[in-house]
């Protein structure tokens, strides 16, 4: 470390950027941190493989044996097939991705005293929370909307024109909306968990435990009681079911209403927990 010199302090004269750009700066900090993680690239690679396999299925089903497409809608270019893609991505890939980019966000800041740093700057606590949720949300969209969109594009490219279903362009908007529902709900819960504990590792373990145990619990309760609605206990499963509802994909039984209640409920609890931590935190060092 060099000694302190008087290198000359220079005043700054310039125009300040609008407030929303400061929120974006928080989000971009999270995005650059995530993009530097090899785990994120591995998750993206797994997503690419998934898209390639789905593209292959569409290609072979549509080009080699178009009759199969007509007879078996699940292999065809439909919302149900895209729903399968979303379900797999949300319940496995998103689960892992948010361990890397979501559950450490606020916990790391609390550990390093960074909340003091943030809140002594001209950014509101709401702005901080939005910025912190925005970066895992964007990453989440890369494993929900992006693969859905790519499969949609491949479907358009590989499916013979006569077999392309009606309203296929409207489907694109529903893909976006479904991805937003799943990604936003999961990101809010992951960041909220990150806020209520002090260690990023504990937050990650809590996130995985919540997803896996609720999935196992929901499945078991539904099987024992014979009531398919109890599957809504599954947190990520409920987020996915809400997304499938937006997508218009058919779901066996009728757990959708409960899935929406669980999704909205977790979002409200997540935002409440985040607010409780951020507004209650002592931040003057």
């Amino acid at each position: 470390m060099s000694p302190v010199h008087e290198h000359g302090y220079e005043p700054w004269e310039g125009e300040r950027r609008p407030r929303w750009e400061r929120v974006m700066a928080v989000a971009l900090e999270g995005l650059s941190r995530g993009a530097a993680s090899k785990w994120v690239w591995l998750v993206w690679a797994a997503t690419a493989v998934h898209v390639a396999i789905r593209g292959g299925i569409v290609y072979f089903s549509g080009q080699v044996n178009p009759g199969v497409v007509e007879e078996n809608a699940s292999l065809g270019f439909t919302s149900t097939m895209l729903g399968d893609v979303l379900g797999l991505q949300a319940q496995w890939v998103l689960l892992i991705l948010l361990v890397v980019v979501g559950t450490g966000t606020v916990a790391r800041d609390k550990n390093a005293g960074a909340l003091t740093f943030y809140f002594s700057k001209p950014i509101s606590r709401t702005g901080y929370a939005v910025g912190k949720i925005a970066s895992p949300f964007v990453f989440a969209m890369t494993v929900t909307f992006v693969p859905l969109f790519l499969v949609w594009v491949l479907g358009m490219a590989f499916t013979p024109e006569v077999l392309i279903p009606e309203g296929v362009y409207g489907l694109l908007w529903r893909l976006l909306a479904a991805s937003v529902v799943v990604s936003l709900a999961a990101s809010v819960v992951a960041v909220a968990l990150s806020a209520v504990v002090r260690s990023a590792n504990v937050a990650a373990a809590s996130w995985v435990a919540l997803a896996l145990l609720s999935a196992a619990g929901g499945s078991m309760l539904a099987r024992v009681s014979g009531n398919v609605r109890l599957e809504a206990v599954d947190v990520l499963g409920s987020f996915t079911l809400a997304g499938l509802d937006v997508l218009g994909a058919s779901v066996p039984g009728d757990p959708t209403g409960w899935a929406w209640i669980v999704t909205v409920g977790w979002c409200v609890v997540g935002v409440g927990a985040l607010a409780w931590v951020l507004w209650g935190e002592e931040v003057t060092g």
Partner: protein
Amino acid sequence: MGSVVEAEGLTKTYGPVDALRGVSFEIPSGAWGLLGPNGAGKTTLLRILLGLTDPTRGSVRVLGDDPQRAASSIRERIGFVPEGDAHVPGLSGVQFVSFAGRLCGLPGDDAKQRAHTVLNFVGLEEERYRDVAGYSKGMLQRAKLAQALVHDPGVLFLDEPTNGLDPEGRQALLALIRGLAMDHGISVVLASHVLPEVEAVCDGALVLDQGRVVANASMEALKERQQATYRVRVRGSVDAFETALNTLGGQLETTREGSLRVVTPGDEGAVLVLKAAEDAGVQVRQVEPARASLEDALVTRLEEAST
């Protein structure tokens, strides 16, 4: 000299605890200290000034604005160096300071350029690409100063900025802080338990105790009461000198390295010292006004406040 902070009847209570009890004061521009024992209300006051918490009663203005209503606007014009750790993990020095600039509204390119400038200014130019988490305590303190300066604030609030620094690093950092106030027009409010630091850097100090203002004055005014204190060297019986001194109403306070510290009543000053020496039959080798320390002044003020 304009005011940086103006407070009127400022009260803050946490349940049954009164952290601030209707304090009124002004902090002028320049370098001003914020002094007081633990629990005096310094941290609460800083939190209110930064707009992080609202006062229960009373009003406060920082650079003319109310922190309750214009916290963001105020934070654009102030820099804060907190006492504890306050860095964003995983960022290098230049990324950290540049990020601070972005949060203060600087355009991206300006934030990067300013980050390099202020890191040079605080002496971290060679360490700027290292992860802040790996910085030594001294480097962290400098990085915290850099992030507080990146947006060119009008006022700098520093909470125990020299904590954990070695004496050399401490002096260097204090010189830098003093220079900001003296040469660059940035007002400094320095909260510190290390009184000689405040004395070395600040033009005056606000002294708090148990949520009340004990004193708020320039250094000269704070030390005024200590002027009747003399450092004396005598040859002969110290006991006899002390007896004679006591008879005349003076007091021998401390003895250190052969020097005596004599407090004289009223305006009699050195005359009384010489008379006591004559009465005691000792030879006076040296009489000079003792250089009053801020610590002496603060102790006196706190004692007066508690009685």
